């Protein structure tokens, strides 16, 4: 993971343009920018590791990552792919504040990395800000839950139709 040089103005623009931040007020965008840094991850490198401390929240600017889990005997199993415009990680918002999976860059990936401890504190202090963040996180969680449900359906499994 490589910190990228970026001036605060460019960082604010990157945050403003990110889908997760659509509709946030200027003040809230500036709050996010105050706790952000730009980071890039080379292909094959891990951004987060299962069991690690969940102290960052990532807005993906460009690139593609695998969310994967390691299964003994099977190796790394990709669960889903996330990329440009997505966010990574909400484990920072709930105990035990540990990552539940690995995230590995498939391509050169650039993210806005937010300090999750500061973000949490700010959410506690400013409930309007906190509500806006949690609302967005819930939407992400809802989409991921829906995708997981569809995944579990094994949609393309061959039908059991003896007659055909």
């Amino acid at each position: 993971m490589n910190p990228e040089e970026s001036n605060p103005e460019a960082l604010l623009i990157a945050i403003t343009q990110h889908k997760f931040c659509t509709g946030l007020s200027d003040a809230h965008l500036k709050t996010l920018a105050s706790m952000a840094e730009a980071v890039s991850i080379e292909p094959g490198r891990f951004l987060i590791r299962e069991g690690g401390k969940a102290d960052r929240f990532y807005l993906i600017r460009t690139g593609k990552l695998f969310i994967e889990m390691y299964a003994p005997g099977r190796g790394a199993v990709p669960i889903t792919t996330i990329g440009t415009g997505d966010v990574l990680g909400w484990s920072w918002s709930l105990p035990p504040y540990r990552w539940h999976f690995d995230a590995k860059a498939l391509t050169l990936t650039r993210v806005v990395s937010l300090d999750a401890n500061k973000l949490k504190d700010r959410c506690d202090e400013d409930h309007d800000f906190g509500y806006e963040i949690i609302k967005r996180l819930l939407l992400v969680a809802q989409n991921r839950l829906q995708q997981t449900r569809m995944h579990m359906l094994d949609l393309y499994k061959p039908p059991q139709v003896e007659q055909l």
Partner: protein
Amino acid sequence: MQQRSTIAPNSFDALIPETARVTSVRKETVDTFTMDLDRGFRFEPGQFNMLYAFGAGEVPISISGDPADSSRLVHTIRSVGAVTKRLEALRPGDMLGVRGPYGEGWPMAKARGHDIVIVAGGIGLAPLRPVIYHALRHRDDYGNVVLLYGARSPEDMIFESELHRWRGRFDMGVKVIVDRAPSSWRTHVGVVTTLIPKVYFDPIDTIAMVCGPEVMMRFVVREFQNRGLTEDKIYVSMERNMKCAVGLCGHCQFGPEFICADGPVFRYDRVRDIIGIREI
């Protein structure tokens, strides 16, 4: 080689199969194969034929070949039961019965001047391949052409070499996603709906064509609606137990519609209210 035009569905001839000879069989996946027949006739993308494996029975199979190529008929078949297993056993030179083409196909004329977003799941790409052939052959008639294809795993993707070829074109967008993949896989993993927010199309001037498992189609429609596409711009291909293929026997009745004669392709608002009814 005999050429003929579409049979009037209500004529007696529509129920009589003609013989055709298998000219080639290609394995697509472990349980899916593509079979070429020496008989050719005009068809519209999305139409299907009834294929008759002698002594085993008849099954409805979408035509997966090029509508502009009237020298042969191409079908892509998943081997799941007695009849399709018998079809799978056929080799070049063997005979089978064929009647068709039947049904209402994809709205190629209505799509003229629009972007086309094709969403296919699993073997659902087979009835949509003629759409791609047609759109690429008449490229100036359409705006952006995008294919989003979901499969169970990389090994379960059909038409893989064509997917690569289409993906290499400058005038077509292709995105592929699989449910399960090894870590050597280099593109999307997940469900096909997640690809919809990743492609550009103008919801005002887009026609979506969707074919795959019914549950997938329901979720895909919801995602399109989130992107601002209205139900009258979304077409789905339905599947039920088709027997006569001409709307007489009633086996494939779907509410007020017969899949074989009124479909298999429907504008979504025509089936919206019945697609989720379990008893249907």
